[in-house]
C-alpha cells in the first residue's frame, strides 16, 4: 500500500533521510521508531506530499505522490504531530471544509461529521471556535478530519501526544479496527509500549537510515537480542549509552 523507494531528503549539506526503502503492505499497522531528529517526521511528511524528496519516490496504492498527487492523496489521511488548524473556524466548519477538499459534501458528510464528533466527544464543542480548544481536543479534531473521507491508509505522526488516556485507548481501537478491515496505518512514535502493543511491523530509523525492520520478533532475531524487550532492543540499536549518561546526570 505504501512503498518508499530510495527516499532521500537533504537540507543543504545535512542529510535528514538517507536512501530509505520500505514497504508497508495493506492491512498492516506499521510503526516507525527512532530517537529525536532521526528523520521520522521528514519521512512521513514526504509520504503525505508536504515535502518533496531530494531523490527517490513515494507510492501510495501504486500512485506516485509527486507525479499523480491528486489520486494518491485521495487514498490518504494525514495526522501531523503539531495540531495547527484554522483557529477562527468552528469544529464542524473545519470538518466540512476538509471533506470539501476531498470533493465530498451532502448528507453523508454531515452524518459522518456527527458520527466522528460523537466518537471523539466533541459534539458539545462543535460550534465553538477552534481557538478555544485544548491541545488534545485539537488533536482529536485533526484525527477526525483524517478519517472523514474514509481513507485507505493513514499516516500519523506521534498519535498519542496530547491525548487523555481514554482518547488514547479509543485511538488504538480505531486504528486496530481500521487495519482489521483492510486499511493501512503508518505511524511514528516515541512510546515503545504503544508500538509494542499496537504495531504488526516496525522500522527503527536512526540518522535518516532504517537500521532494523520487520516484526518485533524478526528484529530480535536479526540482531540476536534473545527475549529483550522492545525498549532494550531500541536502546541497543540507537545508542543506549546516552540514556545511561542521562540517568547518571539526573541521579546526581
Amino acid at each position, binding site marked *: 500500500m505504501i512503498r518508499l523507494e530510495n527516499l532521500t531528503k537533504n537540507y543543504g549539506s545535512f542529510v535528514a533521510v538517507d536512501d530509505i526503502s520500505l514497504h508497508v503492505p495493506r492491512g498492516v499497522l506499521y510503526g516507525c521508531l527512532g530517537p529525536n531528529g532521526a528523520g521520522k517526521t521528514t519521512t512521513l*511528511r514526504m509520504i*503525505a*506530499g*508536504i*515535502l*518533496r524528496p531530494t531523490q527517490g519516490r513515494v507510492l501510495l496504492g501504486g500512485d506516485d505522490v509527486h507525479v499523480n*498527487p*491528486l*489520486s494518491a*492523496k*485521495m487514498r*490518504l489521511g*494525514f495526522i*501531523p504531530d503539531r495540531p*495547527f*488548524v*484554522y483557529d*477562527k*473556524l*468552528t469544529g464542524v*466548519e473545519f470538518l*466540512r*471544509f*476538509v*471533506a*470539501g*477538499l*476531498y*470533493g*465530498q*459534501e451532502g448528507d453523508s458528510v454531515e452524518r459522518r461529521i456527527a458520527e466522528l464528533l460523537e466518537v471523539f466527544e466533541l459534539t458539545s464543542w462543535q*460550534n*465553538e*471556535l477552534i*481557538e*478555544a480548544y485544548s491541545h488534545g481536543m485539537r488533536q482529536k479534531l485533526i484525527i477526525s*478530519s483524517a478519517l472523514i473521507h474514509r481513507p485507505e491508509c493513514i499516516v500519523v505522526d506521534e498519535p498519542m501526544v496530547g491525548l487523555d488516556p481514554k482518547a488514547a485507548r479509543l485511538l488504538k481501537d480505531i486504528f486496530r479496527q481500521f487495519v482489521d478491515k483492510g486499511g493501512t496505518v503508518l505511524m511514528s512514535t516515541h512510546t515503545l509500549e504503544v508500538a509494542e502493543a499496537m504495531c504488526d511491523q516496525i522500522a527503527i530509523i536512526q540518522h535518516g537510515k532504517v537500521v532494523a525492520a520487520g516484526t518485533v520478533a524478526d528484529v530480535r532475531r536479526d540482531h540476536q537480542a534473545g527475549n529483550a524487550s522492545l525498549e532494550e532492543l531500541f536502546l541497543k540499536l540507537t545508542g543506549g549509552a546516552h540514556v545511561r549518561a542521562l540517568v547518571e546526570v539526573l541521579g546526581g
Partner: protein
Amino acid sequence: MKQPSLWHVLQPKWRTALQRLREERDRGGRGKIVILTLVGSVFWLAVFGVLYRILKYFRGVEDLGPLFAGKLLGLALLSFISILVLSNVITALSSFFLAKDLDLLVSAPVDWLRLYLAKLGETLLHSSWMVALMAVPILAAYGVIYRGGILFIPYAVLVVVPLLLLPAVVGTAVTLILVNIFPARRTRDLLSIIAIGAAGGVILLFRIIRPEQLARPEGFRNLLDFITVLRTPTSPFLPSEWATKAIMGYLRHDLDPLPLVLLWTTAAAFVTLGALLHRGLFPQGFTKAQEGAERFIRGGFWRWTVGGLLKPLPVAKREFVLKDVRLFFRDTTQWSQLILLAVLVVVYVFNIQALPLHRGEPVGFFYVTLVSFLNLGLAGFVLASIAARFVFPAVSLEGRQMWLLRSSPLDLRALLWSKYWVGTIPLLILALLLTGITNVLLQVAPFMMIVSMTAMFALTLAISAMALAFGAVYPQFETENAAQIPTSFGGLVFMMATIALLAAVTLSLWQAVYTYVRAVYDGRPVVIDAWMIGWFVVAAALCAAATVIPLRLALRKMESFEF
C-alpha cells in the same frame, strides 16, 4: 532577589530580531539591502526636497514665513502623535496581552515595573520606528533651511524622544483599560471602538487643522485675522505644539527652555501614571485575555449566503472560498481596517468633490480630462495599497495550515483561484465605484468615463494578481498578524512593481486620450483611429501580462513550498 535588567527581559526579542537580520542577509544577499537603501533614500530625498523648497519659499516671505513654517511643523507633529496613539493602542494589545513570551515572563519572578517598562519599550519601538524615520528628512529640512548647525541633531532627538514616549504611554493605558472591559481575544468590540475612534480622530484632526483656511487667505476679513490664526497655537495643551515651539525657538535663536521642560516632565509623569495603572489593572486584564478565547458560533450565515451563491462551483473551491470569507470576518485584525478604509475612500471622494473645477466660470475641458486621468493613476495607487493590505497576505496566512492543504488532493490551482477571486471581487466593486463616482463628480465626457472604467477594470485584475503573486514569492509564514505581512520586503517590491505598471498603463492610455483631447480642442470630430486603438491594445496587453505571468509564477512558487 536581584531583578533582571530590562535588556535581559527583552533578550528573546532583540536576539530574534538580530537573527532575522542575519538570515535576511544570508538569504537575500546584497540585492535586498541595495533595493531597501535605494527606496529609503529616494523617499527621504523626496520628502526633504519638497519640504526644502516650501521652507525656502517661506523663508523668503518676511514676517509671515516663520509663522507658516511653524504652523506646518505643528501640523506634521500633530499628525504624527495622532497616528502614534492609534498605532500604540493596537501594538500594546499584542505586546501586553497576546504575545507568546508573556506566559514565561508573567510566571517568572519579574516585578511588575520591569514588565511594564520592557513591554512599553517594545510597544514604543514597534509602533514608532516608521514615524521616527519619517521625522528625519522633515527635521533635516528645517535644520538646513534655518541653519540649525550640527547641534540641532542632538537637540531634535531630545525633542522627539518624549514626543514618541507620550503616545506610547497613552496608547498602552487605553488598551489596558479596554482589555479590562472587553477580553483581549474577543477584540471585535475592542477594535471596532479603536477603528471608529480613529475615524473620528481623522475627521477631528481635519477640523482642528482647518487646512482650507490657510490655503485661502482671501477668505479672512483682513491680513491681521490671517496672522492671528497663524500665531494662535492649535491647542496650548498639545505636546506637538510644545515640540514645535522648542524646535522653532532653537532654529530662530530664540531659545525658550519651557516647551522642552514641559515635554520631558509630562513624559515622566505619564510614564509614572502609566506604571501605576499597569500595577492596578494588568493582572486582571491579563487573566481576562486568557479567558476570553471562546466564542460560540451559531447558525450558518456565510453558508447560506456566500455558500448559496457559489453552489455551481465544485465543492473544494466552494468550501475554500467560504473558509476564507469566514476567517476574514472573524479575524478582527482583518476586518476592522475596513472601517478606516471606508473613511479614507470618503475623504478621497470628498477631496475630488472639493476641487474648484465647476465653480463659477466654466473650466476648460482639458483640465477636467486631465484631472480625470490623474484620478485613474491615483485610484490605482489606492487600490494597490488596499491589495497590499488584504490580498498580499493571503498565501502567507495559510502557512501553518499548509500541511492540510498539501496532504489533501486539493489542486493548488484551485487554491490560487479561490484566493484570487476572494480578493479581486471586492476590489473590483470598490475600484469601479470609486472611479465611477469620482468621474460623475468631475462631470467627465462619456469617452473618458468608458476609458477610465475599462482601464480600472483591467488594472484591478492585474493589481490583485500581482499582490497574490508577490505574497506567494515573498511569504511570511511565521507572522500571525496579517497587518504586519505587507510591511515586509516583498510588500515593498510589490508596491514598486505596481507603481511601474500604473505608470506604464497610464502613459500608454495618455497617448490615446491626448489624441481625443486634441480633436475636441480643435473642434474636430473624434475619430477612433489605428493610433488610438494601438495604444489601447498596448495598455490591455500590459494588464493581461501583469495578470497572467504573476499568477503562473505564484503557482510555480507554491508548488515548491516545503513545510
